[in-house]
């Protein structure tokens, strides 16, 4: 268990800069998720921490020790790859014990550690099988087992659930989280799926184009996104955002007035952001919308509605009687409205 610290870390591939000065401190025992769209640099950052990529500038420290020039095997880390990277010619038990075998540990010590880890992950019956005989979820567990056996200071996960089907992903998410609660090892987890980030992280770093857009606890990012990118990246279905002008305490947009507790300068061009669950349907609502699509999800109903020429998503609790073509009235929750500066995208 250890802390991890990135100090102004930069990375360029040739002349192309990929990371523009990342500074990030990860606490001992924390589950930190790096999330962002493809190409934002999150995997590169993780691989630099693992020692698989060279650092162009800046420092990376594990447990306050700078590891820039330290080889992967001496950093006391373990990594779970997206494609599991299991050794196809070794059994599950041999895969898991490989790192100990490389250190020339005693055979019975290796067997003991492997058995212990297999127990935690329910891999006991599979120790003599080969990776090709296992399902995706089982292989993922073997990959995790291989990491756990090493008892490292830091766990690194590189999009481990991307290759699994949806149902398995949900199950594995819970398993990984439970594992973290049990082992309490510092974990750095990379994913492009914001649901994984929200459900698993102690803190999230949202990345975009080589920069950290916002760092904070999941609900903090959800309730107070620092900029437009974070606001639209976190939350599913995504936040509704459209252009407007702040005038007289409310926002003029889409041909009508929208309430907002957040304030801006008079006449300022803003982006109005409101999450689907904060767009209430109410007979007293001031905004008229036309229903386009009704998606009953069971516990909730998602409606796609049109106001002027903009498509908005509304999430209503329970069932709805609305049908496509109906006119409904919307009453946005003014306290939950987000205003962003139209030019910079920053929260106001």
């Amino acid at each position, binding site marked *: 268990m250890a802390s991890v610290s990135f100090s102004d870390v930069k990375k360029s591939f040739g002349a192309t800069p990929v990371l523009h000065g990342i500074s990030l401190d990860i606490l001992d025992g924390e589950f930190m998720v790096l999330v962002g769209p493809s190409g934002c640099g999150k995997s590169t950052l993780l691989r630099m921490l693992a*020692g698989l990529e060279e650092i162009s500038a800046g420092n990376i420290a594990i447990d306050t020790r700078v590891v820039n020039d330290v080889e992967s095997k001496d950093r006391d880390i373990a990594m779970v790859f997206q494609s599991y*990277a299991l050794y196809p010619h070794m059994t599950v038990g041999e895969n898991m014990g*490989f790192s100990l075998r490389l250190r020339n540990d005693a055979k019975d010590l290796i067997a003991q550690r492997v058995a212990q880890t297999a127990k935690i992950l329910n891999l006991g019956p599979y120790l003599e099988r080969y990776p090709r005989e296992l399902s995706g979820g089982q292989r993922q567990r073997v990959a995790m087992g291989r990491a756990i056996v090493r008892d490292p200071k830091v766990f690194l996960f590189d999009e481990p659930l991307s290759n699994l089907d949806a149902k398995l992903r949900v199950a594995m998410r819970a398993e990984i989280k439970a594992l973290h609660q049990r082992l309490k090892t510092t974990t750095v987890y990379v994913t492009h799926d914001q649901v994984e980030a929200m459900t698993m992280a102690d803190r999230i770093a949202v990345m975009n184009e080589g920069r950290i857009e916002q760092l904070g606890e999941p609900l903090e990012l959800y309730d107070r996104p620092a900029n437009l990118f974070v606001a639209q990246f976190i939350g599913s279905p995504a936040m509704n955002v459209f252009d407007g002008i702040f005038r007289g305490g409310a926002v003029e947009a889409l041909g009508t007035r929208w309430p907002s507790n957040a304030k801006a300068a008079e006449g300022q061009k803003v982006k109005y952001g409101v999450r689907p669950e904060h767009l209430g349907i109410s007979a007293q609502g001031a905004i008229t919308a036309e229903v386009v699509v009704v998606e009953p999800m069971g516990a909730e109903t998602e409606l796609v509605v049109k106001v002027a020429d903009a498509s908005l998503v509304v999430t209503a609790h329970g069932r709805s009687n609305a049908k496509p073509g109906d006119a409904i009235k919307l009453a946005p929750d003014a306290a939950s409205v987000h205003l962003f500066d139209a030019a910079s995208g920053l929260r106001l």
Partner: protein
Amino acid sequence: MKKKYLNEAFLLLMAVPILLWSLLPIYHIFLFSISSKDSAFSGALWPDLPTLRNFSYIWKQQHFYLYHFWVQIWNSLWIAVAVGALTLAVASCAAFAISRLKVRGGRTVMNLALFTYFIPAAFLAIPMYKAMGNYGLLNNRWSLVLAMVTLASPYAIWVLKQASDKLPWELDEAARIDGATPLQLFRLVYLPLMTPSMVAIGTYALLLAWNEYLYGYLLLSHERTITLAVALGHFTAADDSPWELLMATGLVYALPPAAIYYAFRRYMVSGLTSGAVKS
């Protein structure tokens, strides 16, 4: 329905000339081996009195050209195995360095190796002969071994590199994080995964050396150092040589490659065509 039978008949019809064409010269060797001298020269298609006497002559080395049969077949065997083993060692190390370690200059070495492969061996033979003379290795078994390793390595490296490139890169990364040194990665991860290709290449190099005539003829001269192939060539020095003995010895000489080919045919076919000329 009738078309299907016609199709089958047509295929069978094609198979007959294919088999005749392929097997006739080989059958002819067999024919001579079991014939006595008179029966062989009568031009018969099957001997009146098939005999195994020729093989007995070979076994007991009872002819001028066969005096050193056992030494010579031992030389062929020794050289073939040495070439196979050495080629495997040199090529697997080089392919690992080029493909997994991404050594600087690896591309250049690969290109140089390919260049050597494409130059016909017959043109390299005479310069090799002169060079081996300068090295003082003429009439030494090692000259043939080293020459054949030089000829077999390029293709071996190419095939091994192609097969190695197919291994996922994450395996090396996982091994590095697990704590593997370069040698451990080579020994514990790379070599086990390359085994099928290595069998194909080892067999290829071994057969290349066993079947080789020209280089043996140039580099080795003493009766006790030459390979069986070169010894067979000596038979044609005189006009009244015992051709049936030559064919019988030739049959013995041809058996190991045929047997190895048969045993490994599946490996060799897939291992060789995977590294073959790509479209």
